[in-house]
């Protein structure tokens, strides 16, 4: 397995990163969280991102999704170069074309489940579509909990609302940063199955950070990060092979 120096984006690429760097200069010493990452994710695929803690996985996702500015490099989603959009345009683009699921704190505590779900429409000045809302709630198995507040949900239920919301506007790409990291493995697996089914149904692209080799094994491609750089990529690897690789990187 070799690391491509510069990825030429084929027409079927959903997300393309070219030599993306990110340096945090907040502390006394600058932290180089990403040191020249180039990556292409093809349309409709499921990509898993793995690597030791602090290797830059969250940073990579935030930057790729337009939540954070890279220090340098190019990021193209679909056919839009988001590194050159102004903040307003970027936000609007993100709202319509990109979904994001955090590890936790995805929901506004004072909005009910269905209101949280309607946020993307409200923000876009659109009238929420009740049929679509019902469909999404059914897809994540929460049709009975539409009126609950986030504090009245279990951790797994809250994450399922976040998934439903990320799917709401039918974005081209969904980024998920350890969406089940805070859950037990059984609940996590069922939620991930929900997410994968939904993504497959709507032919969306999924990029997900995970620590679970089992989950990664189901991905079309696994990207291994270490110390802010892509050190390996694997397609069709088994869970055992992936565990092995992660263990090596952790050392």
């Amino acid at each position, binding site marked *: 397995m070799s690391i491509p120096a510069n990825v030429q984006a084929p027409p079927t690429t959903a997300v393309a990163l070219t030599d993306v760097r990110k340096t945090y200069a907040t502390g006394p010493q600058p932290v180089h969280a990403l040191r020249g990452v180039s990556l292409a994710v093809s349309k409709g695929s499921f990509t898993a991102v793995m690597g030791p803690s602090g290797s830059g996985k969250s940073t990579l996702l*935030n930057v790729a999704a337009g*939540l*954070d500015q890279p220090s340098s490099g190019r990021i193209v989603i679909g056919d839009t170069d988001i590194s050159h959009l102004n*903040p*307003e345009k970027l*936000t*609007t683009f*993100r*709202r*319509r074309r990109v979904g*994001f699921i*955090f*590890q*936790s*704190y*995805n*929901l*506004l*505590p*004072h*909005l009910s489940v269905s*209101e949280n779900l*309607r*946020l*993307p429409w*409200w*923000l*876009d*000045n659109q009238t929420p579509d009740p049929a679509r809302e019902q469909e999404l709630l059914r897809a994540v198995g929460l049709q009975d909990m539409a009126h609950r507040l986030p*504090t009245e949900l279990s951790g797994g239920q809250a994450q399922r609302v976040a998934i439903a*919301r990320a799917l709401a506007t039918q974005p081209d790409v969904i980024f998920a*940063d350890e969406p089940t990291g805070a859950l037990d493995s059984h609940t996590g697996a069922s939620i991930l199955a929900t997410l994968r089914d939904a993504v497959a149904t709507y032919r969306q692209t999924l990029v997900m950070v995970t620590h679970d080799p089992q989950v990664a094994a189901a991905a079309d491609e696994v990207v291994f990060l270490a110390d802010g750089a892509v050190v390996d990529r694997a397609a069709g690897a088994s869970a055992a092979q992936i565990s092995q690789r992660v263990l090596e990187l952790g050392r």
Partner: protein
Amino acid sequence: MRQVSLRALRAHWPSAAGVFLTMVLASALIFASGVLIESGLRESDPFSPTATMLPAVMGSFGGVAIMLALFVVSSAFAASLRDRRREFALLRAVGATGGQVRSLISTEVMGISLAALVVGSVAGSFGAGALVPLLRASGIVEEGFAPVVSVLPMLGTAVLLLPAAWLAGRLAAREMARLSPTSAVSTTAADARTLSPGRVTAAWVCLAGGLTATTTPIFVPGAMGGATGASSALLFITAVALAGPALVLRGATWLAERRMMRARAASVLATANARGYSRRLTAAVVPLALLVSLGSVQTGVNRTVAEAGAQQLGDAISGDLVWQGAPEQAADARETLAGLTGVAAVTATETAMVQVKVEATDEDAPFMDRLSWEAGSVLMLDDPSGLIDPDVTEGDLAALEGADAVAVASDDLTLTGKGVGDRIDLRHPDGSESTPTIVAVFDRGLGLGGLIMGPDGLDAAGATESPTVIVETASGEQNAVLQAAEAAGLALTPVDDYVEAATAMSSSDSRLSNVLLMVLLAFIGIAAGNALVIATRSRAGEFALLGRLGATRRQMRAMLGIEAALVAVAAVALGTLTALPGLVGASLAMVRGFSLGVDPMFWAGLAAAAVVIAFAGAAGARLRVRAD
């Protein structure tokens, strides 16, 4: 988006209610001042106390109230929005544009403000009514006075407060909109550690402004009133508020290195909290510091002014005995006293009410006309070269004669820019007007009043009052003169007693000014307590986490206690420090010798109030250990 606003208000009602209350009180204060000022200006008799004193008294109260209100309202909004930073960051992450977050915040701020303005105006009109008995007792309004309530004060309040609220919302929104959406996910959002360059610049500007305000009275002697002192204190406090987070960070870092603070979990946590939440702590300290500062400055400067007046009056009089009595006896008294053996010289004085034209207006509206006249009094000397020395700096008192010559005090601000040879416009109680020429400028205005005229200066123009005869005795003859005068039916008092009585008279409305000051201090106290309670309530999650980690309630109480002590100490220290320049400036500019003018008991009361509020705010914490 309206749903989001409404739900947010419902969820954050305690802090919204706190801000609302602060805004209601602020609008009530300004509205009530406005109502009383307008009522005074509408009074038909321009020489009645209602017309002359009410607008002046309420104007200076209103001025300080406005400065305070702007300050307190904007910091209340800023604090309540800062607590919801994470929520706004999440909205950004979900795809809200900076503009959407801004308009969400503006809608909320303006909604609360408008509602508070209406409620505050109603409360303010009751407040103005409640003040009437006191105003009447102090002689500031006549019997039967009733405030006139119109829409003007409400418009004025809106014009003053709404932009301040809007701006506070804007500034907070700017900070929120700049937040990176990813900051929503970082579970604990500590305050940013650095100040924006704009904020640092603003802090320096306020510091410079405060210094300018402080040194003004030194270069422009006499130009010191309560308002100047208050504005210098307020500018310093604003500088502290702006630079506060950086100062708190320094202080807390220093504290954290002390061995004493590292001994117990509670003190370690308290100093760490101060460091991590430097903005939150600043927001708690500043209103309390303002309480101490403004209270000290207002009372201190007023006392200094009174003391300076007494000093000037004492210096001006070179006699040693004084007669006071009814106007019709004055001429006889003067004659009798002048004829007594042992009397070296006598001088008789009278005063008359006038109005001085402040600026030329060609406006016909009676309202505007009233604003351009300032009430004052003229001191009339029967012998300008006699026993009263106003300390002439320009011109000559010898030229004071008849109704066409006047001397003015150098510190009379209403006549700034006029000098010897210029004319001033006067209006008299009988309705006549005159335009005497300035023939001299004198320095002892605080003791003698702003205008002096010669014998017969205003005889034609209505009643004169408080006739006084100053007597100078030959050395060793004072007792003999006293007895002789008594025998002639004239009671004389020593000059020192007269000066003391005259100064006590001038502060006879001190009950009113004390009440007004208390109203202002209560306003700051409520706003400060409110801010503290909101800040403590918003930390429920933090307390819950500490509880889950095994902190006992005792430890958390101790931590809160140490934090409250830090807040109280910082507030008293900063409040005192920011008051000092104004007090020292007033003292240097006006009085001989050095006095701060601050009543130690009053200062201790203010400090105690700050301590009590700081601890009461911390006591409201809900330490229930529950899972989120």
